[in-house]
């Protein structure tokens, strides 16, 4: 009786072993191992590292173009204190506003609201830049949002006053 049982157990074990062998996929076992994993990780590291270079090259080309872009916006006496003038900078598709502030300084910003791209206007009475679409207010001195839905500052146009002319010489997206 016990002999039969032993034989039965033996054959069951053999069956189980055969199942285990059937479950082995030799190709996967060879390909997915520690060495292959490290090689794949190294390949990914190199690919990610090299993927940064096209962004760097395009940035260099773009910043070169923007650096050389100097545009005359207005003459010094064209705007009275508290007045504003619209212009386009650095391209014709990018509207901007030049303001002569009450403390007699020139400031300029791209005047697309950073909320939903509506045009921003200068409000002399409150000395703020106002986006009328959703009542977004920006500080005229630094272009940062002070009220309403906008979260980011307006891009700042860098200015130079030379020979009685106000010139736009560059642009900063993030500024103090």
């Amino acid at each position: 009786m016990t002999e039969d049982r032993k034989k039965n157990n033996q054959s069951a074990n053999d069956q189980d072993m055969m199942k285990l062998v059937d479950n082995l996929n030799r190709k996967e076992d060879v390909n997915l191992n520690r060495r292959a994993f490290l090689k794949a990780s190294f390949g990914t590291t190199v690919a990610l590292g090299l993927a940064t270079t096209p962004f760097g090259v395009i940035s260099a080309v773009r910043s070169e173009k923007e650096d050389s872009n100097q545009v005359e916006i207005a003459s010094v006496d064209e705007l009275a204190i508290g007045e504003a003038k619209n212009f386009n900078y650095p391209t014709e598709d990018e509207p901007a506003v030049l303001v002569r502030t009450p403390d007699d300084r020139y400031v300029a910003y791209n005047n697309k609201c950073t909320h939903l791209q509506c045009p921003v206007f200068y409000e002399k009475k409150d000395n703020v830049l106002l986006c009328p679409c959703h009542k977004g207010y920006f500080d005229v001195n630094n272009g940062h949002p002070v009220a309403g839905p906008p979260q980011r500052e307006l891009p700042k146009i860098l200015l130079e006053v030379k020979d009685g002319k106000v010139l736009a010489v560059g642009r900063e997206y993030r500024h103090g």
Partner: protein
Amino acid sequence: MDKKRVSFLSIFVFLAINVISLSKVIEGFYGKEYGHVYSFMIVALISTGLATIAFFTWRKQEYKS
């Protein structure tokens, strides 16, 4: 820790550095902060170079025997 283990683990550190650098480069690129793009690109390239050195060091040790 032996040389082989250090090389092995450092590749994963460089992988993490490159993931972060690439995300910062893309962020800087679309935010038009070109200064950030250059800095993180340089970090990524240096990290890639070091990862290459680490990989060949590991390979030399791994296949020595």
